[in-house]
């Protein structure tokens, strides 16, 4: 953590809340708000969004004034490895079957760590895939096909 001009975690969290609140207000603008005695579908989301907006402004303001905290740098490898693995699984599971989706997810996820070794991952991936098929399809009867065909 280095010394900075702003309190970056507070500032980022505040900005995030403001964005969510603004997004909600835009998304619910077509909904009927109603009155307190007879609330419409838009009443609660809008009320909560306004509270979040207040929280967001508070944190962002505090972050600008207080200062001197940085955010630890983001490392791309872990988040990309895990993220792509999950995404590929989501793309493959419905058409390519559990076996391929599992094996691909393990291989890609392993790339997220610098310590993974190539052959170990291949062997381990095959073993886990077999285990997952046996556990989820044979034992727990998850309705999904094993193979693409």
């Amino acid at each position: 953590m280095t010394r900075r001009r702003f309190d970056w975690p507070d500032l980022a969290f505040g900005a995030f809340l403001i964005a969510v609140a603004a997004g909600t207000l835009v998304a619910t603008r077509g909904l009927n708000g109603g009155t307190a005695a007879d609330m419409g579908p838009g009443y609660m989301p809008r009320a909560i969004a306004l509270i979040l907006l207040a929280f967001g402004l508070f944190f962002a303001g505090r972050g600008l004034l207080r200062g001197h905290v940085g955010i630890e740098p983001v490392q791309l490898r872990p988040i990309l490895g895990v993220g792509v693995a999950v995404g590929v699984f989501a793309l493959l599971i419905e058409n390519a079957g559990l076996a391929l989706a599992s094996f691909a997810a393990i291989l890609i996820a392993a790339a997220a760590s610098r310590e993974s070794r190539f052959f170990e991952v291949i062997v381990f991936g095959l073993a886990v895939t077999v285990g997952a098929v046996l556990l989820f399809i044979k034992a727990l009867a998850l309705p999904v096909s094993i193979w693409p065909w």
Partner: protein
Amino acid sequence: MELFDNLLLGLSTALQWNNLFYCLIGVVIGTAIGVLPGIGPIPTVALLLPFTFGLAPASALIMLAGIFYGAQYGGSTTAILVNVPGETSSVVTCLDGHEMAKQGRAGPALAIAAISSFFAGTVATIVIAVLALPLGALALKFTAVEYFSLLVLGLFAAVILAHGSVSKSLAMVFLGLLIGTVGIDVNSGVARMTFGVPALADGLDFVPVAMGMFGLAEIIANLERPAVRQVVSQKLRDLVPSRADLKAAFPAMLRGTFIGSALGVLPGGGAALPPFTAYALEKKLAKDPSRFGKGAIEGVAGPEAANNAGAQTSFIPLLTLGIPANALMALMIGALMMQGIQPGPQVMTEQPELVWGVIASMWTGNLMLLIINLPLVGLWVSMLKIPYRLLFPAIVLFCCIGTYGISNSAFNVWLMLGCAVVGYFFIKVGVEPAPLLLGLVLGPQLEENFRRAMQLADGDPSVFVTRPISALLLAIVAIMLLAMLSPAVLKTRKRALAE
């Protein structure tokens, strides 16, 4: 005696062969994830939720509960032998437990930890049984007004007692409440914030949210830290503690059980806060506080008893009022709803064999844990030899399959991915995700009761303070909030949580 009738009814449920079997599965899985650092009970329970759908409600809850308190046992094993807390609740056990192990007394330390946990678990089971009846009866008098106030109390208390910044946690609760409003509005049938996605019509499923924020985001953050070398080299000789050990540990065990039971019942309670409090108390009461941190057996017995008692009594608000005390209990509510049971006080009268069966199963489960933990400790320790580089891809895969399995939709997997990214952002900016999950699960209930209460009162919000029970509940919230603003309390809280 109604109490004994109820416990007998519970035991007859818990002792059925299939329930004993699911209890055993639960505690074995619990011990395993407790031993392994880097995977906690929340993603595990979330992962197994979809597969409890086919079970009877009692079996499902018995198994999921077993995972939770089993994890407390497993966590202490790694804390003592390797100085790595498997769970947050066993952080304090590292202090004296590992020191004992270094002095060659790993056996007695493990035995005392297990005995304390078993003792606390047994007492906590009785505490739950005693408190469940009056609380359940009280809750039946509640209308929408009282319910709303109770939910508010639960949410606020959970935020204040949990660790992390109070203001940020409050913001997270509201964020959770907001996400909870996504989907078709039950009163008007209008779709809210679904952005035309049909999968969102029923609202956001909390399983992908929980797995993304607790499971995957945690993994990504773990991978950024340099790997810790784990050294396991301890010959386990005699596990039997000496008479002097037992004599020193027993009072600490009693006090720990009491603290754990009391703190566990509070909303926001659970397994994390009690052991810290118990350790601080033992240190204060000891004739020679300098022994602590150098292998004092009281420093193992007290916190271990406290975390198990707390883990179990945190079921009380869930079973009697239908309100979760922490994020894990929120998942339990989800398990009930998947079974078609609306959580609330009526569950106790409508499904007594479910509630009492779960309570009684905690005792049978603790007995099983004692047996699978002490003689088999070597087996659990060898699990630690699985390196994290192999463990994490498997966890990622199981999260994917589990999320997909809830409703066989790839949409949930994408949702989990999104939540993982947001969860990673929360870790980076130092915000706890647990309050968000509580808000998400309680949100629909809160809105429903609020709207109904306002309708009854004709839009006059003063109804919440003119009804006595509701006024009392909200007064407690106000006192807690005011107390948090006073600098003295703020300082003590900071110290208590940092210790």
